[in-house]
């Protein structure tokens, strides 16, 4: 019964990965300028791959985009943990009668289109002179600091806006696994810590936090993976060159610059990098599943 599904995944998931390699290590068609993939590994040509690795090592565009990606992700993940932990903690421990309502409201963004949620912020942050978005209206009318609407997608604010977009877009995916981990904690362990003389504070730091560490790690990995492949958030929130990250570079190499081998090489390098995160996540999920079944 599993055969059709497995066959499907081999043809449309594993095989396409091989296509990335074939294009990365292939050449360009001299007549149509499209990619000319080389399917035979013995004939692979590593010119494009070397170019990209060279850029990464010597501070070329690939390295600039990669460093910016890491910086954005580091900040976005830190904010997600700072905001997400208290929320997940509150709902799992103190949700009470409101738990189902709170969970529903927390899950709702999970099932709203990411692009729609970005569109919502683009509208809110609009700096159109006649009809500014809500944020600019408030800043101009209700505070004395701004005389005219701010263009949040440009200047130094652009970085902040893109990070806001990333946090807003992915934080529900952080909160849910963390909530699940916190909810699994056996309350009697907390009671035991208190009975043995632990203060609320030390109970939190020495029992709750260590027990939820897996949830924090799982949540962190699960939001980092799509962030590494993101290009639409910078495009929508800012659209400027200064906020381009690795995903934008891959997208533009393949679709607009006609440099498919370079784009495929960068995709391969990115996949190798995120594979570590993916394996970590898969191993921890299967361990959790085994424990739950016991």
């Amino acid at each position, binding site marked *: 019964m599993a055969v059709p599904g497995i066959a499907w995944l081999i043809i449309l998931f594993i095989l396409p990965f091989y296509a990335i390699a074939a294009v990365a290590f292939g050449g360009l068609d001299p007549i149509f300028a499209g990619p000319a993939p080389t399917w035979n590994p013995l004939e692979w040509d590593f010119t494009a791959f070397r170019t990209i690795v060279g850029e990464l090592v010597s501070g070329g565009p690939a390295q600039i985009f990669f460093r910016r990606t890491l910086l954005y992700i580091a900040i976005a993940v830190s904010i997600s943990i700072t905001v997400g932990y208290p929320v997940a903690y*509150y709902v799992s421990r103190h949700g009470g009668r409101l738990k189902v309502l709170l969970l529903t*409201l*927390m899950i709702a963004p999970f099932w709203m289109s990411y692009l729609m949620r970005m*569109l*919502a912020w683009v509208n809110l942050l609009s700096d159109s002179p006649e009809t500014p978005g*809500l944020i600019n209206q408030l800043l101009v009318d209700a505070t004395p600091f701004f005389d005219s609407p701010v263009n949040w997608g440009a200047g130094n604010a652009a970085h902040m806006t893109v990070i806001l977009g990333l946090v807003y877009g992915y934080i529900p995916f952080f909160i849910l696994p963390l909530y699940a981990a916190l909810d699994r904690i056996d309350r009697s362990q907390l009671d035991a810590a208190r009975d043995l003389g632990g203060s609320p504070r030390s109970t*939190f730091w020495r029992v709750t936090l260590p027990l939820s560490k897996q949830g924090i790690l799982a949540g962190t990995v699960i939001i980092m993976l799509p962030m590494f492949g993101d290009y639409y958030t910078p495009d*929508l929130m800012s659209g400027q060159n200064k906020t381009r990250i690795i995903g934008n570079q891959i997208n533009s190499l393949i679709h607009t610059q006609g440099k498919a081998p370079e784009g495929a090489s960068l995709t391969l390098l990115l996949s190798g990098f995120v594979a570590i995160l993916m394996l970590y996540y898969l191993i921890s999920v299967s361990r959790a599943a085994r424990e739950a079944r016991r």
Partner: protein
Amino acid sequence: MSLAREVPVGATTAIRASWFRGFISNPWAKPRFLAGFTWLYIIWSIAPVVIAVQISFNAGRSRSSFQGFSLQWYQGIFDRASENFDATLLAALGQSLKLAVITMPIATILGVGLAIGLARWRGRGSGSANALMLFPLVTPELVMGTALFLIFANLFDTFVKLGTTAQVLGHVTFSLSYVVIVTRGRLFAIGREYEEAAMDLGASPGQALRRILLPLLAPAIFASLFIVFAISIDDFVISAFLCIEGCTTIPIKIYSAARNAGNPSLNALASIMLVSSLMAITFAVLILRAFNRRQGNTRSAVEDFARLEI
């Protein structure tokens, strides 16, 4: 004088300390700060979308400020006689719905089969098959989109061109894993006893599957259908990578038009998509809840959803 100044300072520190203690908390206190923080978070996460939906009913042409109620932007999608009519909006809506509806049965059938197969398969290769099934969930969509784009453009192009068919194949590939996870959760909950009892009473494995297991799995199967619908209609990257022209979906339309000075018709289109995917998920939760009730499971279906290791 100095004493009078010290009192308020002390009071603020006390308040801060209690906030902090509330945060790191004990299970018995009422953590007001945490409650406020959580509600603020929820408002922050939902309000922008609510405002975007409100603007879809705008009487004005602005996408950023609300100037009164009107349905003109919805007419702009559906009503050819309307002055705001834009054929590309209706085409995007049609394409999104078409992809979701075609993807639903294919992904569900393949996924349910895969889940049953994996759960009952104890042998060589079952570990790697399990890992294979999980990989699409954790692969960044950009990587999967690039991979699919390159293979459709370079190898499969003799029989499948980039366009609707390629998009459906891509959507099935990434939604398969969700079906497997939802179904597998139910399979573990059901256990093997019913099937074994049926086979002890003389049913063949095929009969046990058809007459015992599939009816027991029905809620998971229906829930999967709706979940596939919701994630297919929300997908952006795979749809965009597998489309050259004439296959623009709603998210692709939003991506290409959001930063242009446009009118609220984009919000109207996005709101239609929002309502359809939220309705699909509500159906999925209701089906699972009805099932839980019958099983005497007291935990809410929403909680089950929150626990899905997606």
